[in-house]
């Protein structure tokens, strides 16, 4: 089992009082399995993704990644988990503005100490980024930036890839092209994949789908 969540709960304190975002979420994902997570705005999709990535901690419940309970990990252990096992793709791309495209592409893999230059070159070609390697993120279009973000994640060959609305900032055609490419490459690395999206159409491209409503999975 690559990922196992048991009764995960999370709430946030707002000016109006505490808001329960996740109300006992449980799910499992095997290696190589792809899951689409849909839900309305504010349903807790991103929060769930952040908890799985170890970017945030649940109030209660258990989250196991490759058998390890991340709820009891400290900061360095969580950092190592993200570095070695998980790959993240964000809606806002979150590339490192001071590094070139080539450096951004290799960054995560080098950090994890497993840069494979052939695989990197292959990815660069598949993503159509050969011409942009020396450019900086600000010099790219939105679609190109998201392809760099996907390449950065895949270059590190993580066991679990978490994508949070990766096409949310792109037009429909570009978004479709990006998601097609992403699904092919994720299949190539045989990683577990969770895609958070609003789009039912995009979700239908994945073989497993779950809907999050008011903090509960359906």
């Amino acid at each position, binding site marked *: 089992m690559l990922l196992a969540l048991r009764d995960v709960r999370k709430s946030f304190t707002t000016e109006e009082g505490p808001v329960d975002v996740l109300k006992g979420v449980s799910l499992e994902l095997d290696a190589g399995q792809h899951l689409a997570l849909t839900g309305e705005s504010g349903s807790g999709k991103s929060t769930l993704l*952040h908890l799985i990535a170890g970017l945030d901690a649940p109030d209660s419940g258990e989250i196991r990644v490759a058998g390890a309970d991340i709820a009891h990990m400290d900061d360095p252990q969580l950092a190592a988990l993200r570095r*070695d096992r998980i790959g993240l793709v964000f809606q806002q791309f979150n590339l490192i503005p001071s*590094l070139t495209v080539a*450096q951004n592409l290799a960054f*995560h893999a*080098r950090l994890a100490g497993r840069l494979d230059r052939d695989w990197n070159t292959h990815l660069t070609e598949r993503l159509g980024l050969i011409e942009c390697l020396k450019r900086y993120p600000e010099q790219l279009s939105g679609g190109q930036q998201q392809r760099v973000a996907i390449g950065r994640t895949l270059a590190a060959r993580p066991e679990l890839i978490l994508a949070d609305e990766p096409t949310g900032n792109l037009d429909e055609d570009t978004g479709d092209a990006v998601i097609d490419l992403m699904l092919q490459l994720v299949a190539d690395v045989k990683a577990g994949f969770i895609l958070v999206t609003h789009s039912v159409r995009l979700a239908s491209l994945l073989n497993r789908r779950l809907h999050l409503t008011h903090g509960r999975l359906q």
Partner: protein
Amino acid sequence: MIAAGISALLSHWHYRPLQLATLIVGLALATGLWTGVQAINSEARSSYDRAAAVLGQDTLKRLQSKTGLPITADRFVALRRAGWLVSPVVEGTLRLGRTRVRVMGIDVFTLPQGATSFGLSGDTGIADIVAGNDLVLVHPETAEALSKSGLNLRTSLQVVPGDLMADIPTAWTLLKRQDFDYLLLASDQPAGLAPLSEIAPDLERIEPDPQGDIARLTDSFHLNLTAFGFLSFAVGLFIVHATIGLAFEQRRTVIRTLRALGMPNRTVILLLLTETLVLALIAGLLGVVLGYGIAAALLPDVAATLAGLYGASVPGSLALRPDWILTGLAIAFGGALLAVGQGLWRIARMPLLAPAQPRAWAMASLKNSRWTAFAAAVFLLMSLTTAWFGGGLSAGFLTLGTLLLGAAMLLPALLILALRLGARTARSAIAEWVWADMRQQVPGLSLALMALMLALAANIGVSTMVASFRYTFTGWLDQRLASELYVAADNEAEAEALRAFLAERADAVLPIRTTEIEIVGLPVFLYGIADHATYRDHWPLLERGENVWDRVAAGDGALINEQLFRRGGYRLGDRLPVAPGWTEEIVGIYSDYGNPTGQVIVSHDRLMRYFPDIPKLRHAVRVAPERAEALVAALVGEFGLSPGNILNQADLKRFSLRVFDRTFLVTGALNTLTLGIAGFAMLAKLLTLSTMRLSQMAPVWAVGTTRATLARLEMLRTVALAFLTWLVALPVGLALAWVLLAIVNVEAFGWRLPMHIFPADWLWLLVLAMIAAGFAAAIPVWRLARTRPAEFLKVFAHER
């Protein structure tokens, strides 16, 4: 509409109170240091003006002996009888306990109009002075120092501190004299007077001196202080410029919205301008208060320096003067407007449909970097040109200003270049990111780094200048004060007895004979020396002709000091007009630090032939150092000489070095304050940027770097940038020291000092810079280390 606009614009400060505090503190610091220096200068200058106006010296002519000897009472009586409206003055210095005062004896009945501006005509004591009951008038500060002197003191604020006014008989008693130094000439003399050449051919008319010697002598000192004040102001202005620039950048969206909702651009600009002026008023008032504090703290040291170096008496307490308060406020307004100008210009030209996404200030700066580097090159070229071709003190300061400005503007380009080179050494992904991120930080931090570079360069430059000066001065004192004792007699008879007494007990008795002459309109002291190994072996000659000492001894040449050499434009071999009918060939030039006037040295015999009447009272005595103390005791025992008549070489050196060190205390204090302001600039900038940095840190954190590591790297980056800035500041500081030593000092004082370098001082400054940068980074880094993951997550998730 206006109220809504104001509240929208002001909400920025409410949301970012730290930025507001930075702006106000930055402007207050800049204004404070400038105002402090101006307050010191203003206090000193007002004191010089009072000194120059004593007894109408600034407006009244006077009669003085051509030979510099005192004027007898008979001569005064003869002039009065001939109808001349003259008033006698006797002047001398007197040590009362630990206090040295200038005694001025006057005759109240004959004192001309315009000579009574010291309180005699008004409130205090005229009747007592006229009554002749030994009353003396002093400034309250002097009165305090003389409280145990037993004198019959009356105070007047019109008397210059350090002066003591009395009637002639009282002054004569105090000074143990029976003659006058000069006679004041009333402006309106009766018609048909017998000419002066008939009644008193030995007297000459001296023109009034509106400025006063002290004001002239201290001009360069005050110019140096002003330059320092300006530097501090400029460093402070960097903070203001950076903060206002950032605030404008962050408010672009608000401004765009206000305009989109129908507020005219002119109104927006007016509101921003008003806001700036209100902030400048608050900061200016704070700055003036701060400046008063700084001036009050530094004034006693400045007063001591002025007294030690120039003999100028400046009160150690500060009076509130409207001129420097208004100047302080004006400079705060000027500085704020200068800083806000660029932002207002951009807003005035910003199209309504400009991208709502605020362009990062850093990016804008980066785009300007080529122009900045170009402007820097122009300034540096100007600096070189003025150094090479310019002349005068203003050219020296122009060289300094353009050098500092050019170097500061070139700094970002140099740092980016160094970081690019450094990035080539990176082996890991994190190292690569650190180098690249540092490079990206440079534009945002550039103004703070420029401020740090200016402060470091000024520190290196001024400390190199001071240390070179001290090193040279110490060596020069050893050469110049070669004799073990300096003994002065009170009169000719005593001098003769002294010489006879010393002849048997000392290794050599060297006469010191001097008189004041004028060469090419400059006052010059002419010295006659004996031919002795003391001079041949030790005298600090900078340039010499052949057989220099033989020629001087033979009365066939003169030595001149560096000041006369430079101001008179002389060269070796030129003939010097010493007196009517007497010229000497210049055979040597010697260093003469700390002396504001020119000097000429000729053979003793030749001097006495031309000026047989000069007093023969002073002597340099050579004796084995271990016997010096005993000889002093014998002299005191035999002749009852007062301590002021015998100077010991070691005491003289100690005193000179003490005066020297105190002179540069103020410079040191201003140096430290400037460095402090630069440190504050770094802190302010790092704090302001720290929230913006989250978006750059978050992706690195997300892919598996701990917050602690990010915090450590952030600290490393700041310290590394400070180190690189120090590296750039080093050559700039040395160039600054060279300009100070080779141009400014030569123009201001008339001497050129050799430059010595003190690498240990640079390393110490590096440590200080690193500590300052470390402290500045500490709060943002601490915040980063404690940033909750939720804060990082905000960068990724805009929905929840």
